[in-house]
């Protein structure tokens, strides 16, 4: 009787081990895949309605600014959780598979930052306006191959003025953020973002 019971228990061991092994595998896979699959992830939200190589100021109707009312075809962070309401942002979707992306961003008196993220939400680059020279951030986003090609074309005696950023995936998002420390700074900060350039650049 006791042997029979033990035999029954041992018969179940492979199934229990199998279930535990599978659980570990499922856990690991689900953590790794979540950023790609979550429809509510920030990158997925910001991509919706964004046009490749066009900079759009992100709307924030929750902040009560008349100018920030939602517009068709323009991404909104109003429903994006835990975004800083004191930041105005602009988003530019890029695809550098054909040509590099030119970013020219005027900076002002308050904190500004540029963040490049992949579609899975991984931050590839984060820069603040501290890196600006002559009140401008001049950047070129390109594939490593394009950067090598550009370097081969560079004149030897001329220093490169732009910051060249290699991107690991050809598609992704550029997010521009500008702090609006006081409500009265809204107009000037918005004007600064509106002057930023994000477009494809022929090689």
């Amino acid at each position, binding site marked *: 009787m006791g042997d029979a019971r033990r035999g029954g228990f041992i018969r179940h061991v492979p199934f229990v081990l199998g279930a535990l*092994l599978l659980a570990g595998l499922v856990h690991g896979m689900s953590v790794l895949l979540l950023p790609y699959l*979550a429809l509510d992830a920030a990158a997925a939200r910001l991509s919706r309605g964004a046009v490749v190589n066009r900079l759009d100021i992100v709307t924030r109707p929750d902040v009560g600014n008349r100018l920030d009312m939602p517009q068709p075809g323009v991404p909104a962070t109003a429903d994006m959780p*835990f975004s800083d309401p004191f930041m105005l942002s602009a988003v530019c979707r890029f695809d550098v598979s054909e040509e590099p992306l030119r970013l020219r961003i005027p900076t002002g008196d308050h*904190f500004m*930052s540029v963040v490049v993220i992949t579609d899975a939400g991984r931050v590839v680059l984060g820069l603040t306006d501290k890196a600006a020279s002559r009140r401008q951030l001049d950047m070129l986003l390109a594939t490593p191959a394009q950067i090598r090609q550009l370097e081969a074309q560079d004149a030897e005696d001329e220093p490169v003025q732009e910051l060249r950023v290699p991107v690991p995936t050809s598609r992704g998002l550029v997010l521009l953020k500008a702090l609006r420390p006081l409500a009265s700074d809204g107009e000037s900060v918005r004007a600064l973002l509106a002057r930023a350039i994000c477009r494809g650049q022929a090689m």
Partner: protein
Amino acid sequence: MLDRLSSIAALLLTAFSGLALGLGLTGHVLASRHAPGTVRAGEWQLWPRAGAPDADPYSLAIHARRGDLPLAPSEGLALFAAQDKGGTPLDGRCTYALEGQMPTARAWTLVLYTAKGMPLQRGGQPSGLTSSMAAVLPDRPLAVLSPEIAAGNWLQTTRDQPFIVVLRMYETALTAAAQGLDVDRLPRIVRKSCASHG
């Protein structure tokens, strides 16, 4: 025949329990204060590497699930608190004081959110404060979080709602020390009083 059926049933049961256990574990870990990549300092939680190119998979998954974007380390640090200094969940019926010193940063913002991450509103404006708005008042708390109007840097809470405090410090020296952040360097959320129920 019966043996074969029971083997198939056992296999199905194994597959199902493995799947359920794995997904359950993911849900549990990502919601936990002890998830890998999460730094805890008193009532504050932060994910200092989540916005770095070498971010760990747990920090990335936590942000993907919540739906927000982490700050890049060069931008600064975002500190989240859903409880007070004593470890009690933040309650809209209570008055809290943010006490201590604000760490050195180029700028900071302090924003109150609902549990789902929408900013609490006060007269059509977000219930929040920036370093430019805050009045520096000696011997007074950095901010007062209360459903009732309060003197000083008042942030209005909603009486019937729990809330989350997010302190963002832009360009702060604290970033370098973020992995083992000492809570003594951060402001604390101290509960002062609570309105009775109803």
